[in-house]
């Protein structure tokens, strides 16, 4: 689904507004837009029994976290899409760990959220440029590159597992990911 830049700004503004006013109507609008995306993300998780129920639970867990934490969202540091992705990613990690009955006090937010939370605000122009580069590059990737990216990000498999699954040398998987990231200008120093 393609979106224009102004669509995206709209969601980011709506999320920032939710953080200030905690209005249920804003929350419902965000739910209607993001829940089907989060569900698709949940469904792409590497096959587990009860995947459908898992995806619904992921939507619920993620959206409740969005409600609780909206006041910590800072529109100068992230877009709504990126912020909600990181919340869905962490919620998925926690649900998978819970499902595997790992007993630990530590959860995904201890290991992931704060690390990104103190990002310096980026110039709006630069952020827009970065997002556009990433978006355009992703839609133009050769299949063998988009396939490995999807496995790493959506199915949640580390490089090593992707290599085993596709019966490729680890170095090949690495270089496909690196090629893709280079097209987004992500791994070259500033």
């Amino acid at each position, binding site marked *: *689904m393609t979106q224009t830049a102004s669509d995206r700004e709209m969601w980011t503004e709506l999320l920032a507004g939710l953080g200030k006013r905690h209005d249920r109507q804003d*929350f419902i609008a965000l*739910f*209607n837009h993001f829940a*089907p*995306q*989060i*569900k*698709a993300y949940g469904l792409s998780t590497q096959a587990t029994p009860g995947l459908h129920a898992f995806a*619904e639970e992921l*939507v*619920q867990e993620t959206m*409740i976290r969005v*409600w*609780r*934490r909206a*006041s*910590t969202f800072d529109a100068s540091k992230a*877009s709504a*899409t*990126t912020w*909600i*992705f*990181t919340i*869905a990613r962490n919620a*998925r*990690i926690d649900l998978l760990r819970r499902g*595997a009955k*790992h*007993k*630990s*006090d*530590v959860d995904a937010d*201890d*290991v992931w959220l*704060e*690390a*990104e939370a103190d*990002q*310096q605000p980026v110039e709006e122009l630069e952020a827009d440029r*970065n*997002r556009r580069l*990433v*978006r355009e590059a*992703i*839609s133009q990737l050769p299949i063998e590159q988009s396939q490995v*990216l999807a496995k*790493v*990000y*959506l*199915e*949640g*498999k*580390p*490089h*090593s*597992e992707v290599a085993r699954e596709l019966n490729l040398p680890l170095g090949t998987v690495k270089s496909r*990911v690196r090629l893709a*990231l280079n097209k987004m200008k992500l*791994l070259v120093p500033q």
Partner: protein
Amino acid sequence: MVHHHPDSEVLTDYAAGSLAFGQSLCVAVHLEGCPECRRRSSQLSQVGAELMNQLVPVAVEDGLLDRILGEIDGVSALPVVDIPASPIEGVPRALRKLLPDGLDAVPWKRVTSRLQTAVLGVGDAANQVALVRIKPGGSIPEHRHGGTETTVVLRGGFSDRGGNYLAGDFVSLGEDDSHQPIAHQNSDCICLTAQNAPLQFTGFWGKIANPFISIHPQ
């Protein structure tokens, strides 16, 4: 100033949430001291956001929104502060729940006169996560890794043939890498390590001083 960083494979797996929990913990400790990797990691999260955004949306079940609205009714929308405001001296944020009383209250287990370890229960079935403390000038015997060994320095420093490692520095060694870390002379070196297979010791000392010999992923 940190000098040894996770490579793009590790950082991408981390941002995607696909890196094992124990290794991710090591990355988190590194990120705390490395603004450059923090910036890259958040850019790599943008990639995940775009990939999620480009998936074909799937309608959720009818009752889901009502269920969620019912749940948030009683839920405060204020930020939840579950972490003490004042950081514990010398303990990275990611380790605060694991080390509530700081690095000096760790129940160390003696391995040799110069080497101690303490296993941390992080609930990672694939990785053994432990703290390792080497006395000044002490070493870990030369060893190879059956799988991946990820290390981040918390205090002090060590050297091996790969270079000098100080607080915040990150190193990930694969199956075929062999090394013999030696702690710097001036202070204890404390590291956090995650390893997904028992080490294989190559030298004589390994036979008696294998710090991880009785440790398996739990």
